[in-house]
C-alpha cells in the first residue's frame, strides 16, 4: 500500500472522485427550498443537471468518497482492503470548502458524499458528519447534500446525519443475502436494512417538523417516549403495535400510491425484509437533533444494487426492488451494471463491456412499477425469470395481453392509457387534457407529441384503428421488432449482437461479430 504523507488537494480529488464514479445516483431532486439571507444555496425539486461527463451521465453533485481507505474486502469493489492502490482521505475542512467554492461557481447542485470505511464504521460516520456539519453550520450551505450512511454505524450517528442531509442512501449492494455473504463478507444484510428502516421511521416521525415545537412535545413523540421509557431507549421492539401502526398507516400519505394493491406480501420470500419490518429494534429517535432549522432527510432515501455480478434473475432483482419500494418508502432503487474492476477471476468477466442493456431493461421495469401501476408479477414470474432483451418490458407485456387491446383514446382512463406501448405519463396526461375539448384523431395525437410507431397497434381513435391491424401476437411482435427501439446511445450495438441469442437468457455471452444479421427480424 502506498501511503503519502502529504498529498495535494488536486491529487486527492482525482483519486477520490475516480473511486466514487461507480456510484450511480447523482440526482439532486426531491426538495424545493428557497435561499435564505444568511448563507448560500437553494434547492429545486425537479433537480438540475450541471454537466454531462464523457460517458453521458449527468453530473449534478460533487460526487466523491471521503476516503478510499477501507477495512472491508468486498470482492467487486476497487477500494477493497486487499487491493494495492493509492489511498487518500479528505479532511472535513478541505471538503467543505471545496463544495462551497464549486457551488459558488455554479459547477454543482451540492455534495454527494460516500466513503470507504476508515478504522471503523463509527469513525467514518463521524468524519462525514463533521464535513456536513461544517457545511451547514459554518458555511451556512443551503444546497443539496446526499450522504451514504455507513452500515454498522451507531444509529445515533445515522440519525444525526439525517438532520444535515437532504437524501440519505444505504446501498443494498446485492439483491440477496447469499450473494452479499459471498461477495461482501464483511457486510451483513440486516445491518444494511436496519438503517434504511430507521431513516424511514425517523422521516415519518419528524415529518413537517420545522423547528417550531420541541419535538418531544409532539403527540407522536410522546408515544415513542412512553414506549422507550418502558422498553429501554434503543430497543423499540414493541413499536410495531402502536407507533409502528401509525407509521405504516400514515406512510402512504402525501404521494399517490403507485403500486397496485393486489400483490400479497407472501409472494416475497425475503425473510430479512420481513424481519426488519417487524422489529423496530435500535430505531428509536436519539434526541440529538442539531440546532438547524431543517427537516429530517427531506428528499428521502435511495439504494443501489449491482446487476450481473451474481446470478440472480431479473425477477429476483425486481422483486427485491418492489419490496423495498413498498416497505421502506424508497424514492429510488438504482441498478448498476457490474464491472469487474478488479479483474477478479472469481467474478464474471466484463471484457465485452458491462451488461448495459440488461441494466436498461431493469430501469424500464422500475419505471413501470413506480409510475405505471405495474407489479413485478405481471411482468415476470417463476417460469419467466428474465426480461426479453429485444422488446421493452411494456411491449412484451402488451403482447401477451392482447385481449385488453385495442383501447379507445377518447375514452380509456389514465391507467389504461399508461399500459399502451408508446404512451408514457406525459402523453397520457396530454391526451386526457386535450380530449376534454375535442375528440382526438391520429393527427391530433401526432401533434400532441404521442409517438405512434408502437402505439398504433394498440389503440383506436373514434373507434377506428389507424391501419387495419390483425390483433395477432406473432404479427404485432414482428412489427414491433422492426420498429427500432430508441435505446440510450451506445447500447444499440449490444442489441444487434444479441439478436441471434435465445430471447430470455440474460446471462449469455455476447455472440461473435460475424453473427450480426438478425434473421429474427423478418417483418417490414
Amino acid at each position: 500500500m502506498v501511503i503519502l504523507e502529504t498529498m495535494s488537494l488536486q491529487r486527492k480529488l482525482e483519486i477520490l472522485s475516480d473511486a466514487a464514479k461507480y456510484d450511480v445516483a447523482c440526482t439532486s431532486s426531491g426538495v424545493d427550498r428557497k435561499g435564505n439571507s444568511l448563507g448560500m444555496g437553494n434547492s429545486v425539486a425537479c433537480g438540475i443537471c450541471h454537466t454531462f461527463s464523457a460517458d453521458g451521465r449527468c453530473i449534478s453533485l460533487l460526487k466523491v468518497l471521503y476516503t478510499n481507505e477501507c477495512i472491508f474486502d468486498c470482492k467487486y469493489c476497487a477500494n477493497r482492503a486487499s487491493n494495492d492502490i493509492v489511498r487518500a482521505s479528505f479532511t472535513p475542512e478541505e471538503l467543505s470548502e471545496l463544495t462551497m467554492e464549486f457551488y459558488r461557481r455554479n459547477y454543482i447542485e451540492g455534495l454527494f458524499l460516500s466513503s470507504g470505511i476508515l478504522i471503523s464504521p463509527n469513525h467514518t460516520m463521524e468524519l462525514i458528519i463533521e464535513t456536513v456539519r461544517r457545511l451547514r453550520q459554518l458555511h451556512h450551505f443551503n444546497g443539496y447534500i446526499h450522504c451514504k450512511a455507513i452500515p454498522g454505524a451507531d444509529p445515533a450517528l445515522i440519525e444525526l446525519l439525517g438532520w444535515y442531509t437532504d437524501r440519505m442512501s444505504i446501498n443494498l449492494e446485492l439483491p440477496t443475502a447469499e450473494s452479499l455473504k459471498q461477495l461482501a463478507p464483511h457486510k451483513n444484510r440486516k445491518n444494511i436494512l436496519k438503517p434504511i428502516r430507521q431513516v424511514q421511521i425517523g422521516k415519518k416521525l419528524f415529518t413537517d417538523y420545522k423547528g417550531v415545537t420541541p419535538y418531544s412535545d409532539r403527540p407522536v413523540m410522546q408515544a415513542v417516549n412512553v414506549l422507550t421509557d418502558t422498553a429501554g431507549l434503543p430497543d423499540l421492539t414493541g413499536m410495531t403495535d402502536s407507533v409502528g401502526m401509525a407509521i405504516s398507516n400514515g406512510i402512504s400519505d402525501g404521494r399517490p400510491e403507485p403500486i397496485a394493491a393486489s400483490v400479497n406480501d407472501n409472494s416475497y420470500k425475503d425473510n430479512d425484509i420481513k424481519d426488519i419490518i417487524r422489529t423496530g429494534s435500535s430505531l428509536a429517535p436519539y434526541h440529538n437533533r442539531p440546532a438547524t432549522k431543517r427537516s429530517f432527510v427531506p428528499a428521502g432515501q435511495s439504494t443501489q444494487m449491482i446487476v450481473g455480478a451474481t446470478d440472480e434473475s431479473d425477477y429476483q432483482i425486481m422483486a427485491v426492488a418492489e419490496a423495498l419500494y413498498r416497505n421502506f418508502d424508497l424514492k429510488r432503487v438504482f441498478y448498476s451494471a457490474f464491472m469487474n474492476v478488479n479483474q477478479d477471476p472469481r467474478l464474471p468477466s466484463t471484457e465485452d463491456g458491462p451488461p448495459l442493456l440488461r441494466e436498461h431493461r431493469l430501469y424500464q421495469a422500475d419505471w413501470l412499477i413506480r409510475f405505471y401501476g405495474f407489479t413485478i408479477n405481471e411482468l415476470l414470474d417463476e417460469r419467466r425469470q428474465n426480461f426479453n432483451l429485444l422488446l421493452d418490458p411494456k411491449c412484451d407485456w402488451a403482447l401477451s395481453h392482447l385481449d385488453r387491446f385495442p383501447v379507445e383514446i377518447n375514452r380509456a382512463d389514465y391507467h389504461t392509457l399508461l399500459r399502451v406501448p408508446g404512451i408514457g405519463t406525459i402523453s397520457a396526461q396530454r391526451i386526457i387534457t386535450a380530449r376534454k375539448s375535442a375528440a382526438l384523431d391520429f393527427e391530433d395525437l401526432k401533434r400532441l407529441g404521442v409517438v405512434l410507431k408502437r402505439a398504433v397497434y394498440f389503440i383506436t381513435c373514434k373507434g377506428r384503428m389507424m391501419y387495419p391491424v390483425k390483433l395477432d401476437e406473432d404479427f404485432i411482435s414482428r412489427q414491433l421488432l422492426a420498429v427500432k427501439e430508441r435505446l440510450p446511445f451506445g447500447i444499440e450495438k449490444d442489441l444487434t449482437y444479441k439478436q441471434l441469442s435465445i430471447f430470455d437468457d440474460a446471462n449469455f455471452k455476447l455472440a461473435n461479430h460475424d453473427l450480426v444479421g438478425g434473421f429474427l427480424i423478418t417483418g417490414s
Partner: protein
Amino acid sequence: MKNKRIYLCDNSIDGIFTAIYLAWSSRYGHSNIKIEEKYEGSKFANIELFAEYIVVDTDYNLSKKVADSIKKKISEEAYEMVCRVALSYYEGKADLIYRFLILAFAVGPTITERLSNEIVNRMFRLDRNVGREAHHLLGFIRFSQHADGLLISVIRPKNDVLTLVTPHFADRLSQEKFIIYDENRKLASIHIPGRQWILAQLPKLEQEKLDEIWGIDDEYSNLWKIFFKSIAIKERTNPKLQRNNLPLRYRSYMTEFKI
C-alpha cells in the same frame, strides 16, 4: 378587399402587447391584420407589397392593459405562457400570440388545454422550448471569480431567457455580487447583495475581452476540470449520449470544456 395592415413592434413583451392593443382597438378586422416584431439587421427586409405598415412605439400603459385583461379574462397560466413565448427566438411570435389571444378571449381559461388546436399547440411547443433552455442554463451557467469576489458568467442562449434564469441565481447566491451577460443580446443582469437585481444593455464586447471576462482560471476551476475528467467511466464512454444531453452550443462557455 381591404389592404393588409402590418403592425411593426419592438421585440419585447411590452412591444408585442402594445401592438396587440392597437391592432385590436383599430377594429380593422383580425384577418386583415398582421403583427410583426422587429429584428436587428432584418429590418424591412421582407417588406410586403400592398400592405400598410404601422410602426408601433411601445407604450407601457397599453401593454399593462393587455396583460391585466389576459390575467383577468383568461388565466394566470395563459399569461405566463404568452410571456415565455414572447421571449422565444421564433420569428413570427408576435402574430402567433395575437392569434392565440383572439382564440383565448373567446374560449376562456380552458384554452391552454386545447392542445390539438394548431395555434395552441404551437404556443405550447414554443413555451416548452423557452422553458427548457432556461432550465438547462440553470445548470450550465458557469461563473468565474474576479477581483473582490465578483462572479461573472457569459451565455449565448437562443431564446431571451436572462429574465427567467436570473431570479434563480439571485435567490441561490443572495450574498454574492454577480453578472450574467447574454452575448447574443448584449444584455446583462446584475445582482448586488441586498438589492433587487437589474437588467442592463451593454455595448458590444470584443471576443478578447469576453474571453478575459469568463475564462479566468483559478485553483477551483482547475480542480473542477480534474473532477470532470476523473468522474467519467472509461468503459462506458459515450460521446453521442453526452452530446444529446449537453448540446455543443452550450459548451463554449463552460469551464470543463475549455482547453
